[in-house]
């Protein structure tokens, strides 16, 4: 029987630990999660964005309901665990459910600290902690005007900014003389205040609230100095308290938080604690980065993977208020034993301070320009010695420039965390770049979630990119798929996968396309990506296909079409030739021509004649119009040629029969030559096969079109089966990683030959790719036949109405 894990607290720390655990040991445990809130796990950090109107409630869900299902996790939302029976190893909820555990994780987070003031229980006095609070504020803003936020820290200011966005009149009450006094020094704090006042926020500093006034609902506050302020909404954001009630009543050792050791073990064997409720070496953290680190250590422990213990974290913060850039990390305050380097520019509103002790950077505060933030944060965590070059840390210096971001990245170890919010390590980002071909911050964000939450680590992520790819390899300008979205190909495809989007409409809705129905660029691209990711679930959207692929013929400049029947390997028969000739005469085809790919092209066909002509031909479509396999060009090979070493025609015909009708990012051309003389010009094709003595050479990424590119040699194989296996794997890898409209030649330049080789090297990877391509191929039907047979498709080829002028006038 599987061991049982119970997690109490369906929040950021607990669920992230479970996610890690599932990666390390997918089938080891039976998992049950209890959460008081009636929601799946969401990103609490982004409540500020929801309040400010920058994100919707649905955007902040991190693990939706189906995630729990997919991982066979039993989830009880709306249940608060009230009792732990340590002897029997069970927990019980307020609703009366019990569950057994072998290992129990307490991740109960924290509770907002409510000042015990007279009147604090009045209507209209709330905290800012969860979705419920957020909704309450948004609701209040509809009817009430005056809001007062108690607490001038991070949370208070973010709440205040959100309420301003909701058109409320907002005052912030702060007991200290300086805003964010736990993160900022006086200079930065003062600059912040000025900036927020410009945005319309009011401040009541050095004020101590005495009473909350009002009858049923709050009407104002009175301070200890006797002054008063009106208010019909009061938000308390004065701090948090680790939520230890359950642990305490269960006899688990607590101090401020639930006491844990470096392996997150509490005083009771088999019970662990992580997150804001836990206290490690005397510290209970209130930011996500440390919680993820704790979760990662615990996950390894539970998975039986060797790990060093949790050592505590240095934290950095960033204020998520638009138009204000504030960054703070480490020990930012001046002390007798510290010295600091400062830069202050009142004209630009920029202030930077780096605190140094014993030659090492231990803290930093940045205001106005926080681009140095991640670099400095890395130096703080690395404990880098800057003795003798203290000034260069901020100012740089001719001759000995400050270390570049990429150099700092080089010094980081692989498991060091780059994105604190989502717990993404340097190693994970490097992997995304190298293995998934990410080449922009946006693509990394889609792949790994790095920089997806507070965005503070964006510069650091960019540095990792530069470090891996070099300055030229990085896409600096963010290139969206088209004008409808800033998202790039990889982000969109990743979303299609992770959110199981199966129609263009869903994609455009969910990813907030600026044009509700897209444009001529993204519509065909989305249709392709959806079909690639969900071959079975996605219904091809004919209305999103470019004319040629909709009408299955190539539109010409005069609005007529060309028809190219399939002719496998460029091999035909007298019978087929006769039929083609007859039909060309019957339909008075103006031009009959050989194509560059060894096929016969009938040009100048009127649209309404197409279905009839296809029916008369009774041959499959040659796909001379599609983003698809066009042709496999062959030479005669050993069948007739005196130099031929292998059956080139036979090989080509097999390839063409196997891959015909396949949708690909752009057109794909193949060729097979019977010996290295290469008469079929295989080395300028997307996939070229050249026979050698006793085997075949496989070449990829060639192009004889717009930009001449010779192929790269992929590998040499012995048998025809292997040619089919490698070609299938190659095509599927291209289908899964190529951008719509990107030929293999551009694609291979973009992602690199080595990457392609690595992806295809292992037999099991090739098999998996072939499995997926076969699934797609199985579903393809001949489009000409389909149109001939279906009346409603066929009718679109003729005018709906035709009337002569005389009959009307």
């Amino acid at each position, binding site marked *: 029987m599987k061991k049982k894990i119970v997690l109490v607290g369906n929040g950021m720390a607990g669920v992230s630990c479970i996610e890690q655990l599932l990666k390390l040991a997918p089938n080891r445990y039976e998992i049950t999660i209890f959460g008081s809130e009636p929601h799946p796990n969401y990103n609490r950090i982004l409540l500020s964005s929801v309040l400010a109107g920058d994100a919707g409630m649905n955007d902040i869900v991190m693990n939706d309901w189906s995630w729990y299902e997919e991982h066979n996790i039993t989830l009880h939302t709306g249940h608060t665990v009230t009792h732990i029976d340590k002897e029997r190893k069970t927990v019980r909820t307020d609703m009366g459910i019990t569950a057994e555990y072998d290992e129990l994780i307490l991740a109960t987070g924290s509770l907002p600290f409510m000042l015990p003031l007279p009147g604090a229980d009045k209507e209209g006095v709330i905290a800012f902690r969860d979705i419920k609070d957020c909704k309450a504020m948004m609701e209040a803003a509809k009817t009430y005007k005056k809001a007062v936020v108690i607490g001038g820290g991070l949370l208070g200011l973010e709440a205040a900014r959100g309420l301003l966005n909701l058109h409320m009149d907002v005052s912030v009450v702060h007991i200290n003389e300086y805003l964010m006094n736990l993160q900022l020094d006086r200079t930065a704090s003062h600059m912040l205040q000025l900036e927020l006042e410009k945005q319309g926020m009011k401040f009541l500093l050095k004020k101590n609230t005495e009473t909350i006034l009002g009858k049923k609902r709050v009407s104002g506050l009175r301070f200890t100095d006797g002054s008063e302020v009106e208010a019909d909404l009061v938000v308390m954001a004065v701090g948090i308290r680790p939520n230890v009630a359950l642990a305490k009543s269960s006899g688990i050792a607590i101090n401020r938080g639930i006491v844990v050791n470096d392996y997150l073990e509490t005083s009771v064997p088999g019970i662990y604690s992580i997150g804001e409720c836990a206290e490690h070496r005397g510290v209970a953290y209130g930011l996500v980065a440390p919680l993820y680190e704790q979760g990662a250590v615990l996950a390894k422990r539970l998975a039986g993977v060797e790990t060093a213990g949790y050592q505590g974290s240095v934290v950095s913060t960033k204020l998520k208020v638009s138009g204000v850039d504030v960054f703070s990390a480490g020990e930012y305050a001046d002390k007798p034993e510290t010295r600091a380097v400062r830069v202050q520019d009142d004209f630009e509103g920029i202030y930077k301070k780096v605190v140094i002790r014993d030659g090492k950077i231990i803290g930093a505060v940045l205001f106005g320009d926080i681009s140095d933030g991640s670099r400095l944060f890395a130096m703080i965590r690395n404990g880098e010695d800057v003795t003798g070059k203290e000034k260069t840390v901020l100012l740089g210096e001719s001759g000995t420039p400050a270390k570049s971001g990429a150099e700092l990245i080089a010094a980081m170890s692989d498991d060091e965390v780059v994105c604190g919010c989502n717990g993404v390590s340097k190693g994970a980002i490097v992997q995304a770049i190298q293995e998934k071909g990410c080449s922009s911050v946006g693509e990394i964000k889609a792949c790994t979630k790095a920089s997806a939450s507070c965005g503070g680590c964006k510069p650091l992520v960019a540095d990792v990119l530069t470090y891996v790819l070099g300055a030229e390899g990085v896409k600096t300008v963010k290139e969206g798929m088209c004008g409808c979205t800033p998202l790039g190909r990889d982000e969109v495809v990743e979303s299609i996968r992770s959110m199981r989007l199966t129609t263009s409409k869903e994609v455009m809705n969910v990813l907030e396309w600026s044009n509700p*129905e897209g444009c001529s660029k993204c519509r065909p691209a989305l249709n392709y990506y959806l079909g690639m990711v969900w071959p079975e679930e996605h219904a091809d959207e004919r209305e999103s296909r470019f004319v040629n692929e909709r009408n299955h013929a190539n539109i010409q400049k005069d609005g007529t079409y060309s028809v190219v029947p399939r002719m496998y390997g460029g091999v035909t028969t007298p019978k087929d030739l006769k039929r083609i000739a007859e039909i060309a005469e019957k339909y008075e085809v103006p031009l009959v021509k050989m194509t560059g790919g060894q096929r016969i092209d009938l040009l100048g066909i009127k649209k309404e004649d197409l279905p009839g002509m296809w029916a008369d031909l009774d041959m499959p479509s040659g796909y001379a119009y599609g983003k698809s396999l066009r042709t496999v060009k062959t030479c005669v090979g050993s069948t007739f040629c005196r130099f031929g070493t292998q059956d080139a025609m036979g090989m080509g015909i097999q390839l063409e029969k196997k891959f015909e009708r396949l949708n690909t990012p752009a057109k794909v051309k193949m060729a097979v030559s019977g010996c290295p003389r290469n008469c079929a010009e295989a080395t300028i094709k997307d996939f070229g096969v050249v026979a050698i003595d006793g085997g075949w050479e496989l070449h990829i990424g060639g192009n004889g079109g717009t930009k001449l590119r010779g192929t790269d040699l992929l590998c040499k194989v012995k048998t025809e089966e292997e040619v089919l296996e490698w070609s299938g794997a190659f095509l599927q890898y291209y289908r899964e990683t190529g951008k719509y409209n990107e030929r293999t030649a551009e694609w291979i330049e973009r992602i690199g030959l080595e990457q392609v080789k690595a992806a295809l090297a292992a037999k099991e990877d090739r098999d998996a790719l072939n499995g997926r391509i076969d699934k797609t191929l199985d579903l393809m039907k001949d489009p000409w036949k389909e149109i001939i047979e279906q009346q409603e498709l066929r009718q679109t080829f003729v005018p709906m109405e035709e009337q002569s002028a005389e009959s009307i006038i």
Partner: protein
Amino acid sequence: MKRIHVGHVTEIGEKRSRVVRVGALEIAMFKLSDGSIKAIENRCPHKAGKLSEGIVCDHHVFCPLHDWKIDLHNGVVQAPDEGCVASFRVEKDEASGELYVHIEEEKILAS
């Protein structure tokens, strides 16, 4: 002005188009995703591309030849390109779903 019967609303697929020929004039009839029907001349002002073959997005069509974007409400070509194609008033009989287009006589005779 002539009112001409051109077909039934179900004959056009959503976000697709059908062609109607009236004398010398070729008209492209579009069905938008909200179900409404628009009619413009089936001839792109750029190089005479068949607009009926373009991709329809909200109330615009993209010409299949060189991607000009045209507003189906009024036939106006969208920036950065310039121009205009004739548009026609469509009347839909709500009860029967039959479609009629209103066209000036001159247009029918010579286009």
